[in-house]
């Protein structure tokens, strides 16, 4: 899928410590345009920390991140806004604004643009809700939604500005198996329909195989293994095999 083209997201030699405790110790990977990379790993390995580097929510101690060939190093918070409009993020628990309705949440990034009329915005919100298989819930508050609905609304909010890439932090954690299947299908369908690049962080290998094109296993702060689904199944890597055994 990469055809030798420049990667959309590129990470080289990423190091990050928190309170003196090293979390990332030289992470390298590329994600090509339209591709879905799944980062696998156990809890507390730093998967979400990697994701937060990709839109500049966290700055690296060392290393470089390039988005569309532009380095994020040294960019101010204001300059990062441009990156974040292109690289959206879906948070683990949705991170919907409690004080806003579903409409308020999804229209938030559109309103921030300051160029859209209320009427156009309402039509766009309805269109986005339809994309995530929800309709007529604009007036509900996040507290009135189920876990699966929150994830869908969070996804609708993330794609509101038609980003070029979407980062998913544990998109199926805390959902029952049926809803998990629906969310995975939704992620896959949206990715195919809209053609954006995706990075998914998960410890759920079943979900990973549904949504991913390539897979990277994070262990002790480094990418220990990376490859396609076929390569994952045939690898001799001990930890990857343990993951496979535990999942299937």
């Amino acid at each position, binding site marked *: 899928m990469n055809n030798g083209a420049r990667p959309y997201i590129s990470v080289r030699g990423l190091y990050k410590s928190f309170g003196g405790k090293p979390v990332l110790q030289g992470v390298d990977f590329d994600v090509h345009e339209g591709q879905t990379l799944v980062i696998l790993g156990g809890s507390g390995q730093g998967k979400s920390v990697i994701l937060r580097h990709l839109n500049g929510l966290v700055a690296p101690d060392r290393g470089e991140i390039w988005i569309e060939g532009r380095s994020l190093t040294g960019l101010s918070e204001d300059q990062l806004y*441009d990156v974040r409009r292109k690289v959206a993020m879906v948070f683990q628990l949705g991170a919907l604004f*409690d004080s806003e309705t579903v409409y308020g949440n999804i229209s938030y990034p559109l309103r921030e643009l300051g160029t859209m009329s209320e009427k156009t915005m309402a039509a766009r919100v309805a269109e986005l809700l339809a994309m995530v298989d929800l309709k007529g819930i604009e007036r509900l508050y996040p507290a009135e939604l189920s876990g699966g609905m929150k994830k869908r609304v969070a996804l609708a909010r993330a794609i509101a500005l038609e980003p070029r890439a979407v980062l998913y932090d544990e998109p199926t954690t805390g959902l029952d198996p049926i809803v998990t299947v629906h969310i995975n299908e939704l992620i896959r369908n949206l990715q195919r329909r809209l053609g954006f690049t995706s990075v998914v962080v998960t410890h759920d290998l079943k979900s990973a195989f549904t949504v991913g094109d390539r897979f990277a296993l994070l262990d002790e702060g480094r990418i220990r293994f990376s490859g396609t689904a076929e390569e994952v199944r045939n690898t001799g890597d001990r930890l990857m095999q343990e993951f496979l055994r535990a999942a299937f």
Partner: protein
Amino acid sequence: MAQAFRRFLEQLGDVGLLTRECARQALRRPFEGDLLIEQLDSVGVRSLNVVNLTAIFTGMVLALQMGQFLARFGAKIYISRVMGLSLFREMGPVLTALMIGARVGAGITAEIGSMKVTEQIDAMRALASSPVKKLVVPRVVATVMMMPVLTIISDAVGLIGGLIIAVTQLGLGAGYFFTSMVQNTRLGDLTSGLGKSVFFGYLIAIIACSKGLGATGGADGVGRATTSAVVAAAIGVLVSDFFLTKLFLAIG
């Protein structure tokens, strides 16, 4: 001890950096008028009951204590002068600040803190908007604007409390109480109290926002941040009151 001092300096640094970012975002367009009005209502209008209740009982207690004390020297007729001075310069701004610190400060930290631990602050940043502009600026500006207003109301209600005691317990006339107070209170007494209240408003809101943005963990972390914000705001108000009093006395 050294660690506690280091932590204090770090927190001071956080407040300083947040102040700078708050000033930068406050001057940037678009101005968030709706959010400011919402906060003016939350900080000001909804604090009226607690401020009034505190003020009236403070005024009544002050009049009772002062009346008893001054009566020993046959000087209870001076009660309105003493009350005017104490309420305008000290009791009004400080007690209002302590009540607002507890009510509004705690509310701000709990709200921003729970947004922080549920990743809503990160979501705002990820959606290319500034949490400082959306959350901190309206709260700081509203608290700075409402504190002098609440202080004036508190001064007036406190005087009414004092008046009730002066008339019913000390046998003074209402007319005399007010005339004596107005004749012997300078505009500087009122303005120094209002000047203090503006600074207290800034202090309460910026500490509360900083603690909220620094909250970690879950509900427990938000609880700790909230307690810490109320304590820090109260200490900040009492310590800065000393220096502001010195300043206002020096400039007359």
